[in-house]
């Protein structure tokens, strides 16, 4: 393998990474495709292009993207505030950010449904102004935003902490306006971690099951997510159908993640290029 870099340890770390990934991710996941291959092409297409399956892809994709965008906008502001702005209760809020990871997804789903249902503390107020949340696509977006938020905040926090305040100060002394400092110094430094956080929140949302099924209402064609469809197939002992849909979902996630990672490398290379 041709590689560029002079530090030691490439062989060891690369080898270990690949080995671990293969054992834990690639080989098990390849079984999914192997099992789906027990269908012939026609059967496979029938399963994965079934109108209900297609509707579930649409719901899943749309809600995941919406939630990831909400997080990509709100996440950096939250992360920045939690690190740079000091106010009472900051530590507590910071701690709460991990909640969506710590709570079992089913509990999150139940808690969110309780809060956002028509008789819930927020849901009742929102329903009163004509915005029902639970059991609509909006409810799914709420659940997926909840699930994805820590990905964005936690990947951005170390980068913000690492951002040298003196650089910003130096820039302002050099006469850069706030906007210029933001655009030329802060954005390039934080963009990689923001993109990472966005990609992870998005990808996680695509596969989310536990928290969604409680709040979505699971109505076919409207609020049925792809993960639920997989479970439905399994309940019928239809492993081939379940793995076929699982494989489609996996392939879609993979392509999306790969595209976002590619974008990130590309932008990183571009900024490197202008600095050189």
């Amino acid at each position: 393998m041709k590689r560029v870099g002079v530090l030691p340890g490439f062989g060891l770390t690369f080898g270990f990474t690949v080995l671990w990934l293969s054992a834990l991710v690639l080989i098990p996941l390849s079984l999914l495709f192997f099992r789906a291959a027990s269908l012939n092409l026609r059967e496979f297409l029938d399963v994965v292009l079934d109108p209900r399956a297609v509707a579930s892809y649409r719901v899943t994709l749309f809600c995941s993207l919406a939630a990831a965008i909400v997080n990509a906008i709100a996440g950096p502001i939250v992360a920045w505030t939690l690190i740079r702005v000091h106010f009472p209760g900051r530590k507590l809020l910071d701690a709460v950010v991990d909640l969506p990871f710590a709570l079992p997804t089913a509990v999150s789903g139940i808690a969110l449904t309780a809060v956002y249902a028509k008789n819930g503390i927020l849901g009742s107020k929102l329903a009163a102004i004509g915005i029902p949340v639970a059991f609509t696509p909006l409810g799914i977006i709420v659940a997926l935003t909840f699930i994805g938020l820590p990905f964005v905040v936690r990947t951005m926090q170390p980068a913000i902490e690492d951002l040298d305040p003196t650089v910003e100060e130096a820039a302002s002394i050099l006469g850069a306006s706030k906007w210029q400092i933001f655009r030329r110094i802060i954005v390039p430094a934080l963009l990689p971690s923001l993109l990472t956080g966005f990609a992870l929140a998005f990808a996680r949302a695509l596969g989310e099951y536990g928290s969604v099924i409680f709040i979505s209402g699971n109505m076919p064609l409207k609020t049925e997510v792809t993960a639920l469809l997989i479970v439905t197939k399994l309940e019928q002992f239809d492993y081939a159908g379940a793995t076929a849909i699982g494989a489609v979902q996996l392939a879609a996630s993979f392509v999306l993640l790969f595209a976002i990672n590619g974008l990130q490398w590309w932008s990183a290379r571009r900024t490197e290029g202008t600095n050189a």
Partner: protein
Amino acid sequence: MNLLTRRQALLSSAAGLLSACGGGSGTPSLRNVSYDPTREFYQEFNKAFLAKWGKPVEIEQSHGGSGKQARSVIDGLEADVVTLALAYDIDAIAKKGRLLPTNWQQRLPNNSCPYTSSIVMVVRQGNPKKIKDWDDLVKPGVQVITPNPKTSGGARWNYLAAWAYALKQSANDESKATDFIGALFRNVPVLDSGARGSTTSFVQRKLGDVLLCWENEAYLAKREFAAEALEIVIPSMSIKAEPPVAVVDVMVDSRGTRDIAQAYLEYLYSDPGQTLAAKHYFRPVKGQTSTLPEMQLATVQEVAGGWTAAQEKHFDDNGVFDRIYKPGSPAS
């Protein structure tokens, strides 16, 4: 290999230490893999059985959705006995897992069903929508809560109860019955994945006007949520839900637990077993008289020609249920 086993043993013992739970490897164990609504019943039944059995034995309970539990057993979950919601699920263990003979239903009395149940309706205090029977469920403005038949065994019983009624009303006209089912599911605002999820939606989220559920679950919910003053409506006819039990031959033979497994299931048919079943709102099948009201009940055999046929016709992909939710159909 050896190393792995030892490591596994170490892990289990570590877990044992951490969890401070008893049951050393010396005590034989019996594992009952069951479905959701039997939790409370088996908790009490296991105590009674242990007292009767006399020898030290640890009974391990596993509960979950009936289909999921069957799948786990097929995929290797060690179960000495299975006590599931439908014969179809144990059939799958026999056919796909080859863990017991396909004629398993003939091995215990009453088609291996030690208790039966049925499907009833639960309404809110005072029955504000005046729901009396199945016809009331298809009226506009009535919201029905039932889980998804594709993911819940109980929901399949709900569905078949409605189907049985529709067939009877239309004198076995299946297209009219299909229309009736379609109209009913158009009134379903939310499809939970499991029976208890539906109960929660109905009671906690205040969704819907009527909840379709197991008879035993209805009485349990009425008791658990006493403050809600739920009312139970007995429809003019319903389905005879027959949750079967079986010994898993391959497992008991490899674990040496056949005797106790057999005794365990037979005890379900004994007087104490039947009394406990009745106490938990199941309908006993021998001797005991149930305190539950008389109901006109059809069997799966009568309305659908058995579980395999019912599954294929109604619940498999592109079955009657799926057609309700085809794009362009009224419910979609």
